[in-house]
């Protein structure tokens, strides 16, 4: 599938190095693109989000009816709608300026951290796979199985506190790793495209967990008719970090640890070197004696384990009342945007995870106080990724020079 590419005669796109394979060129661009492009992408996406908020606002549309007689009203209404939305977002995600005491005012920030935890963990999972040139869209399935496994250990096993929690987390990560590793194995052995396989495995995992949750003999809570398991035992839940007033739990710390581990893995270990080599150019890596198939399996195991960590975070930390089929809460897909925005670097993913965590926390606040559907967050997120994936577009919009200084 080599596509000989020479330098272009036409000016529009920037001059590029030859692309080794289908995924690698783009992933390479994403992982090495400038920070400036990332920041501008966020700005542009937020601008489009504002536009959408303004366009659908009741008062803005009313005042637009008499735009030419009293344009002031229209601009005032637009400003109110957008300003209201973003201040609500800020109050919901960082600092609640309307709270009475500092303790309650700072609460949104801890919520942001809480939401960021699983996003970072799963984002790392997707990012590690990206670095090997693999696109893991299977976050949902891996989280579901991880959550189911961790949850089963969480309510079934009787052990003292730190042991029980550790065992439950390990079980979850193992389940996620196996579900992810299956993809790597299929890719290595049969060449099955990981994108298709992960998409399909998402649904298979969903129906598997759904099946288990609707059988008393498997995961369903005794005597219940709902597709839900028993709640977690106290000994298997992640402790709250800042006391009972705040929802922030151990999951966030675990995610931070994962950032460090993945950073070390990718940048300092020999396995990380091989992973990156495969990601840069699989044929060259094979030529250099690296077992590419084995790297695919290993990377997918690691990726699944990290995404599994996000799943355990949900079941053992955020919602401890039992396993459900929507325990993934869209994180499996959000993780892709986190990894892309973070350019698949551990530290970048940390930043992107915090940003999207803030969007999540703030989005709910925005919905509650301003009546703006939380789906706007999805729109802004996906726009960010679209823009970030197309640096030439961003450069064209902001009239940046074709090649930016690194």
């Amino acid at each position, binding site marked *: *599938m080599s*596509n*000989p*590419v*020479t330098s*272009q005669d036409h000016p529009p*796109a920037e001059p590029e190095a030859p692309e080794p394979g*289908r*995924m690698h*060129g*783009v*992933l390479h661009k994403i992982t090495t693109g400038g920070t400036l492009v990332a920041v501008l992408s966020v700005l542009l996406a937020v601008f489009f989000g504002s536009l*959408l908020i303004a366009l*659908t606002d009741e008062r803005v549309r009313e005042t637009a009816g008499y735009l030419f007689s009293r344009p002031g009203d229209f601009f005032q209404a637009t400003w109110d709608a957008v300003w209201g939305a973003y201040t609500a977002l800020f109050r919901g995600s960082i600092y609640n300026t309307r709270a009475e005491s500092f303790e309650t005012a700072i609460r949104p920030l801890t919520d942001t951290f809480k939401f960021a935890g699983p996003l970072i963990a799963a984002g790392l999972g997707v990012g590690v796979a990206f670095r090997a040139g693999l*696109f893991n*869209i299977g976050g949902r399935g891996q989280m579901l199985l991880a959550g189911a496994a961790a949850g089963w250990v969480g309510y079934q096993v009787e052990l003292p506190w730190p042991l029980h929690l550790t065992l439950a987390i390990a079980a979850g990560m193992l389940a996620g790793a196996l579900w992810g590793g299956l993809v790597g194995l*299929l890719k290595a*052995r*049969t*060449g*099955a*495209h990981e*994108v*298709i*396989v992960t*998409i*399909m*495995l998402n*649904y*298979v995992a969903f*129906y*598997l967990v*759904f*099946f288990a949750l*609707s059988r008393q003999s498997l995961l369903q809570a005794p005597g219940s008719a709902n597709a839900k398991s028993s709640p977690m035992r106290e000994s298997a839940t992640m402790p709250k970090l800042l006391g009972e007033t705040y929802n922030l739990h151990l999951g966030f710390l675990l995610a931070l640890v994962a950032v460090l581990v993945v950073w070390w893995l990718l940048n300092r270990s020999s396995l990380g070197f091989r992973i990156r080599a495969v990601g840069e150019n699989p044929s060259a890596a094979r030529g250099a004696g690296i077992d590419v198939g084995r790297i695919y399996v290993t990377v997918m195991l690691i990726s699944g384990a990290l995404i599994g960590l996000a799943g355990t975070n949900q079941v053992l930390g955020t919602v401890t009342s039992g396993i459900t089929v929507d325990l993934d809460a869209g994180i499996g*897909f959000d993780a*892709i*945007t986190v990894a*892309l925005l973070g350019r698949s670097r551990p530290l970048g993913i940390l930043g992107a995870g915090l940003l999207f965590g803030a969007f999540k926390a703030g989005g709910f606040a925005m919905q509650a106080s301003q009546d*703006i*559907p939380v*789906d*706007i*967050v*999805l*729109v802004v*997120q*996906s*726009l960010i*990724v*679209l823009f970030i*994936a*197309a640096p*030439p*577009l961003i450069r064209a919009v902001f009239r940046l020079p074709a090649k930016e200084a690194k």
Partner: protein
Amino acid sequence: MSTTIEETRLAGVPTVVDRKGPVIFAVLTVALALIVALAPQPGDTTFRLAADSDFAQLPALTVPSTATAWLLVLACVLSTAVAILRYLRQRPTPLWLVVVFAVAWMAGFLTWAAAGATIPVVGLLGGSLALAVPLVFGALGGVLGERAGVVNIAIDGQLLAGAFAAAMIASLVGSTWAGLVAAMLAGLLVALVLGVFAINYLVDQVIVGVVLNVLVIGLTSFMFTQVLAPNDATLNSPPRFTALPVPVLGEIPLIGPIFFRQTIIVYLLYALVAVIAWGLYRTRWGLRVRAVGEHPQAADTVGIKINRTRLRTILLAGAIAGAGGAFYTLVSVPQFNREMTGGAGYIALAAVIFGKWDPIRATLAALLFGFASNLQGVLSVIGSPVPSQFMLMLPYVVTIFAVAGLVGRSRAPAAVGTPYEKG
């Protein structure tokens, strides 16, 4: 693994006859025989063959379950034997034999699963068609895009955008046709974004597709809550296409009520399948599309404009998928709802792969997937021994087997997913 051998064989010369057909037949036959033998279901199975409104009422067919199931197992054994014989003579398993085997196997399975109950055959098949229509539209869009070398993961987004636009515009204008056109335009718009990013900006097509799906979910859900839901009467209560029975064909027992008492969208679909299948293999346009997807360099050297052809094809594909979305809001449920496609676009994608990037086969695959999801509904009503979740899982599992090369070989167009830059 044997696949490495096959890779080399594929790269080499003429294809040797695939033995996977007979093997799969044999495995399935044994499985069915085991099911019937190990878990015999006493009683009779009734197949209701006529709809209530039929002109000529076919009598219901009641058969003893176990005996009939064994008879159908025998039919499976015979088909398998034919497939093996053909394989020994170096001839591939033909499509008609696959269909015969599938029907026999399915009938056997149903006879066993519905022992002591009645299966409404017309409802089962008609319902399958209704579930399959958007899938077929989506699969056709997927086939076109991928044949031109652009991965169209955004099928789901196109279906959803189509459903949304159809509901809103049809409600506003009060015309179903306006809704259908709006749906096609919405699908086309999603495809345009895909095309611009993938072809002009060389962004990875898979990433754009996935992100576009999320974007469309976000946009439509946002608009639904913000605009549609508060103005339900004016913006979200579209008129529906009514069923138009075809005069003579509609009166054929069994087939008529299933295929020829449908809405105009379904008839359009029949025509579309035929036109695309013919166009792709028999016209200059089709040859160009396939050339662009298989070997863009070669196509470029003979003067075909690669990126223009790709963009046009992907736009057409988007419009087709968008029309499939209209089926949700103008036929199935007369109202838009958030995320109402429920990931149907991904099943359509599965149908594309399972159908080996061929319009007819992809259509059959989509019908099969529609059948599988409707079957689980019917079986759960009559209380069958198979958990519904496993029936729902079927399309996805089958697709994994297909991409892993276990059910015949699915080979994508060679240049699919690769952006083309003129050298």
